[in-house]
């Protein structure tokens, strides 16, 4: 299916410097609505910095970001979130001293005004999707690390975003939880545009429509999973010259 419409999210030559270090270097990027796009690359490639700029957590040093046809480069993060971007952190970030229910409530309640029923339904439905519905009243801080990551994903999907950004969501999950996660992402894809930073190549191959490879702050390659698997430059970046 050819997608001729404007991209759902796009970056136009965005860069980010930290002092002398160039973490992201003039990246162009475009994802059509409903696509699941994996972003891969070695440690320190600039993946987190890159998506951080898309969601507004990290200001750009240069370049322009368009979301849903609008220039959002200067928009503060909380406004981008309210326009339909949800973001989960690479290092789990939840409210450890609040219940799971209250965690999700904070994520979703602003969407619903005073409709307490809708809020409650969304909380239950979102926790259900990650398999934590029966722990609604527990303190989030008492959950295992893997469950805390799932809670954060539930918070993300409870916002019913148009664009969901997940930074290494499967890190620390058990194999069975990863399988559940892959299934969930496939269900969500199509409705939502999803950007998925992921080190687990099985997860990438099982979910992504397209893959963007970052290396040293630049886009090394973009293509289908099959393209990327066959790409020699990618093999070098990942495995080193000798194995290529």
């Amino acid at each position, binding site marked *: 299916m050819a997608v001729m419409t404007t991209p759902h999210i796009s970056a136009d030559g965005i860069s980010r410097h930290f002092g002398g270090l160039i973490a992201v270097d003039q990246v162009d990027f475009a994802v059509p609505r409903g696509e699941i796009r994996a972003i891969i690359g070695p440690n320190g490639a600039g993946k987190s910095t890159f998506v951080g700029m898309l969601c507004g957590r990290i200001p750009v040093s240069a370049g322009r970001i368009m979301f849903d046809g609008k220039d959002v480069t200067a928009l503060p993060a*909380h406004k981008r979130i309210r326009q339909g971007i949800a973001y989960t*952190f690479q290092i789990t970030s939840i*409210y450890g001293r609040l*219940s799971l229910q209250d965690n999700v409530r904070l994520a979703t309640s602003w969407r619903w005004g005073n409709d307490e029923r809708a809020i409650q339904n969304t909380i239950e439905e979102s926790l259900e999707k990650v398999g934590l519905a029966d722990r609604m009243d527990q303190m989030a801080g008492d959950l295992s690390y893997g469950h805390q990551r799932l809670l954060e994903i539930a918070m993300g999907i409870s916002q019913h975003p148009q664009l969901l950004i997940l930074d290494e969501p499967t890190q620390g999950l058990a194999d069975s939880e990863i399988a559940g996660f892959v299934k969930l992402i496939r269900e969500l894809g199509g409705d939502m545009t999803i950007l998925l930073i992921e080190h687990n190549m099985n997860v990438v191959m099982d979910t992504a429509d397209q893959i963007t490879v970052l290396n040293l702050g630049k886009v090394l390659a973009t293509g289908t999973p099959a393209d990327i698997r066959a790409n020699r430059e990618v093999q070098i970046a990942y495995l080193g010259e000798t194995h290529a």
Partner: protein
Amino acid sequence: MIEKAGMTDARKSLYFHLGLIGALFILQFILPAYHHGNLARIMVLACYAMGYNILFGYTGLLSLGHAMFFAAGMYGMGLPMVHLGWTPEPALISAIAAGVVVSAGIGFLALRTSGVSFMIVTLMFAQAGFLTILYFGEWTRGDEGFVIKQAERVMAGFDLSQPVNRYNAALILFSICLLLTIRLVHSRFGRVMIAIRENEERTHMLGYDVHFHKWMAVIMSGTMAALAGAAYALLFGYAGATFASVQYSIFPLLWVLLGGAGTALGPFVGTLFMFYLIDLSSSFTTAYMLIAGLALVLLTLFLPQGLVGEFRRKVVPWLS
């Protein structure tokens, strides 16, 4: 241990605090004159501490400059009464206005910083406020302060220098501040304040304007402190620069820590506790601050969540 969603918990907590207000009302018929007078003063100071608690206990911002908000209310009340001959009613409005303006201005500037810098900046502003009061000694009479005459302290027909009226005025103010705090904590705005305290970055990335919420918290906190300052001037007939000094910025922090930060009742319990700790120890030694300090150290070591905080943790988890 943290505020929960259920209606029933909110209601239980409300009844508990209404019960306490009832008990304070009845106490006035039982207490001997000395303690009756003390309690009126403690209730007013507890309002100051409750204001402080909104910012420190619920939003997680540690200010070292709240004396300037207390003083804004105190002088916003006292100066127009003494120099312009205003009655307490319009003077109360000018005191509240002073609280809003000062806290909005200082909050706007101080919130450009965070953490330790926020503490330092609020401390500096308060020090500047203190020096300003001394500088305009012609009107404020500086450290010495000025007295508001008994005849002028009549509000809605009640002579507020009379112990009974004074006690009940303090109780009304105390009830308003306490119920406002509980209302705030259970409101959506209050939940976002708590969310900021618990995890600021997450809160921002869930779609909340963290900076705006913090600013509003400073304004609510500062205005409640100013209201307490105004009531203090009116009920006890005195305004002086001591109340704008660093010491009076530290007091509400200690009261709130002692009683329990982020609990509605903690500020009152902390104020009460410290008042009598100093009162009792000063009756048999001149080194009473040493005793007070020691008690503080012991309490923070063994009851890190404060008296009410520990009580809530162990006995009544539904308390606001």
